[in-house]
């Protein structure tokens, strides 16, 4: 991947980069990753997913919500939200930009991805 991703001026899909932090990747006080059960990890992700979904729904029906689990630094934890149209995506992007989530500042931009089955980071 060249990391020179296309950033469209408008899109029905927004990206919130590095939003999801997998707790299994967070080092504990001893520097080693925390040991969490599969159930805890699933609950953590489900809570995250629901909270993002509920917030995004305020801007319009969410057609797709994807969270990237790719280990590549520029993709890990990226959240992609596809709305019905560009106006809803624009409202969501403007709302999310500059907000905090779980202690971390968020940025948000449009994504060129419209069909996640075809999405590739080349």
């Amino acid at each position, binding site marked *: 991947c060249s990391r020179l991703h296309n950033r469209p001026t408008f899109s029905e899909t927004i990206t919130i980069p590095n939003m999801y932090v997998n707790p299994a990747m967070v080092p504990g006080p001893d520097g080693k990753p925390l040991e969490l059960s599969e159930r805890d990890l699933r609950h953590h992700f489900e809570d995250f997913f*629901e*909270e993002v979904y509920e917030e995004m729904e305020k801007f319009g029906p969410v057609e797709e919500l994807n969270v990237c689990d790719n280990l590549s630094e520029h993709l890990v934890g990226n959240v992609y939200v596809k709305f019905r149209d560009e106006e809803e995506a624009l409202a969501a992007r403007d709302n999310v930009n*500059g*907000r*905090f*989530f779980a*202690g*971390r500042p968020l940025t948000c931009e449009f994504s060129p991805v419209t069909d996640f089955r075809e999405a590739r980071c080349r």
Partner: protein
Amino acid sequence: PSRSESPPRQRKRQWDIGPNGEITEPLRGAALPPPGGPMPAAGGAPGGVGV
């Protein structure tokens, strides 16, 4: 036999939680005038029609 339902998990809200656990105001509203406040003064004279 019927399984007992586990109580619903308490989800802690994470939106608008700042680095120190404080509730933050979305920054996007910082530059906007308060609701019902006076309209900002107009800027300079409108420019001409571009060609």
